């Protein structure tokens, strides 16, 4: 049955103030049902306060082969990296 069903990607925000994180995927007939199933499949241990589901086919992904042109030119620009700052303790979740 799940052969005919659409694939959805599931994103869950575990606590207020945090971002939605990709947790996995599931099959469902439509977005509403996907949301229901996401609740059952991915939040059984009270992991979430908010759920997003997205049609997997709507995601446009970068390709492995594009890595060189996409990311390598950034390696020689260390002044763009925020590695030299010391973060205060109070700033969590960066």
């Amino acid at each position, binding site marked *: 049955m799940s052969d005919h069903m659409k694939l959805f990607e599931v994103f869950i925000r575990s606590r207020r103030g945090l971002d939605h994180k990709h947790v996995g995927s*599931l099959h469902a*007939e439509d977005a509403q049902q996907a949301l229901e199933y996401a609740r*059952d*499949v991915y939040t059984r241990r009270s992991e979430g306060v908010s759920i997003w589901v997205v049609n997997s086919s709507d995601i446009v992904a970068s390709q492995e082969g594009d890595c060189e042109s996409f990311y390598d030119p950034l390696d020689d620009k260390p002044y763009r990296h925020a590695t030299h700052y010391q973060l205060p303790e109070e700033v969590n979740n960066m």
Partner: protein
Amino acid sequence: MSDSKLKEATRQYAIRLGDDALVLGHRLSEWCSNGPFLEEDLALTNVALDFIGRARMFYSYAAELAADGSTEDTYAYTRDCREFSNLLIHELPRGDFAFSMARQYLVDVYNLAYMEALRTSADGTLAAIADKAVKESRYHLRRSHDWMLRLGDGTDESRQRLQRAVDELWGYTPELFASDALEQGLADAGIGVDAATLRAAWEQAVSATLAEATLQQPAGDWEVSGGRRGLHTESLGHMLSELQFMQRAYPGLQW
């Protein structure tokens, strides 16, 4: 009713509600690993767990009222068919997926209204259990209502199967709204729910869903009852033999 009589009546009432939840929860749990697809399998099992959790709360309260050393397990595992007082609709074999969903829908509409009414019980524990149950039932109903529409207004086969399920279940629904002296007495005392008062709204909601799902409402020319008096269908004994096997074979078993 005197205080001690009222307490005993409340205990029996808690057992009844516990039996309803345990028997239905067990039927749903039979879908575990047999669901039509993974996501639905997990969802069904979640619902089963809600009902088993509900049974535990009602049984624990009954045991507390009895104060005779009994526990939730005493009620679940050491009583025979005639001592079970669940409504018959809950014990019917799970059948095909359409049957399980049709039953679920019919009892979800009922349960939600019932638990909403029980929330205002003069008995604080029953009211607290109902308060938790209402949230679960809202979710259960959203699911089962959705499946009624999907299957009823789906393919020829799904519609046929769902119609057959509704026809087979229909005669078990009048029992949901019957009451006896015990329930009447508790309703009068503000502790229990007078189920008869829920009937009109239930019929209206169910009729609307059947119509929306393009199903025929059965004629209602037969009905069966007896669950509250311990008179059950033949399937309850088979179910209990599986449910109670470990405690029957190894009494007092702990794990």
